[in-house]
């Protein structure tokens, strides 16, 4: 599936609009093959002969052209003519239209502060967030797990597993903790050391607790 670009004259303006488009969604063209629809062009327009290079300079990979009947001998210098294309519902990027959203990227561009979930974590779901704390406004169901690079805060009942400090202690030896409003957890782990429900003090069940690492032991204490 390729994206079809339909340039129109004057080309310099069209390229300026394309640049604005790219500024709004920089990753849209990454790895996408592009077909140029050259309907209406005769090859004598300003900037036409350098169009392919101008696009390549913007990392737009033109793999073929369409509707190039009017171009005559200039075809030799251009990418191959394609035919038989079928529209498959991918929106055409015409400069001036709002760009379709780029595919979701892992948040590597900014330092995230933490993940906040305002829905309960349902049984069978696994939430993994390696670059910070996870806060759940709701309960974490039995048979589900929350995995965080940082600490875990559950404003509800923790019935599943909570695994904090997945990547070990943070910079400056920052230790991670687990907090919940009601402890009914199946498993708690911090910085690689874990404790199952069986090993937890029954007196703490059903109470708000904080969990931290005391040396190489998991320590739990009530918050009420």
């Amino acid at each position, binding site marked *: 599936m390729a994206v079809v670009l339909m340039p129109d004259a004057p080309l310099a303006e069209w390229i300026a609009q394309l640049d604005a488009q790219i500024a709004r969604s920089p990753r849209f063209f990454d790895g996408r093959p592009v077909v140029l629809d050259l309907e209406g062009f005769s090859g004598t327009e300003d900037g036409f002969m350098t169009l392919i290079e101008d696009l390549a300079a913007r990392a737009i990979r033109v793999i073929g052209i369409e509707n190039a009947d009017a171009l005559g001998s200039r075809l030799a210098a251009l990418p191959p003519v394609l035919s038989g294309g079928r529209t498959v519902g991918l929106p055409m990027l015409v400069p001036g239209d709002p760009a379709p959203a780029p595919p979701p990227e892992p948040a590597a561009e900014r330092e995230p502060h933490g993940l906040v979930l305002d*829905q*309960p974590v*349902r*049984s*069978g*779901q696994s939430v993994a967030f390696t670059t910070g704390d996870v806060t759940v406004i*709701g*309960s974490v*169901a*039995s*048979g*589900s797990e929350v995995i965080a690079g940082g600490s875990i805060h559950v404003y509800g*009942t923790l*019935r599943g597993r909570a695994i904090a400090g997945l990547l070990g202690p943070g910079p400056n030896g920052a230790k991670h903790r687990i907090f919940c409003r009601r402890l009914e957890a199946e498993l708690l782990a911090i910085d690689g050391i874990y404790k199952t429900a069986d090993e937890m003090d029954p007196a703490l069940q059903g109470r708000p607790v904080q969990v931290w690492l005391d040396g190489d032991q998991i320590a739990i204490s009530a918050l009420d």
Partner: protein
Amino acid sequence: MAKVLVVTSGKGGVGKTTSTAALGAALAQTGKNVVVVDFDVGLRNLDLIMGAERRVVYDLINVVQGDAKLAQALIRDKRLETLFLLPASQTRDKDALTSEGVARVMAEMRERFDWVICDSPAGIERGAQLAMYHADTAVVVTNPEVSSVRDSDRIIGLLDSKTERAERGERISKHLLLTRYDPVRAARGDMLKTEDVLEILSIPLLGIIPESQDVLKASNLGSPVTLADPTSAPARAYMDAARRLLGETIDMSIPTDRKGLFGKLFGRRVA
């Protein structure tokens, strides 16, 4: 345009088919055009509960594969003229259902009916996912016991991720139907209380259906319990639930079997 309702649970044997039939009949009794669709390919039950097992000619798979038109496969209920059944196949299995085929049949049913009620099979695999995919609303049937509650939680997670609405970023409205509820056992602590189940599942309560022998009697008669014995406790509870689905606000109560004075003195307690 119709509302598509899926009756699902995760756990098997909690009352999905019973509830589909009862709610379908209750909604049809209020005058709505209702079709109940059996998605349990290979283990069909809805036709038995509806009393239509001797009139099945074509089924959902025939329609999906184009062997029959929808109108040929639909079976009209003999007691309610606005209630129809689309049975499942007993001889095939779930692999014969395709997403495109199901989408096409659902679109056709949406045109014809006010309510399309899909009876989901148990489990979380393809059959259950196909049944829930096109739903606008879900009724999650749960027994007040731990394994049913956990399985229901799982299915709620799937309703929030594997449906057409979820893919579009919308949410399906979900309702909890607590079935086979025994207040005596709940008070003794043998069964989870309603509040416990609601606290774990966090979805609004549609109704509480008490445990009752009338349900088995109705299935043996081949009739939804709301038609077989409308004054029985489960039937009244299902009627209330159906009216809540239509938007009415009704106080939540657990109907009990009405007994006369002698019934109270000599009747057996539910064990």
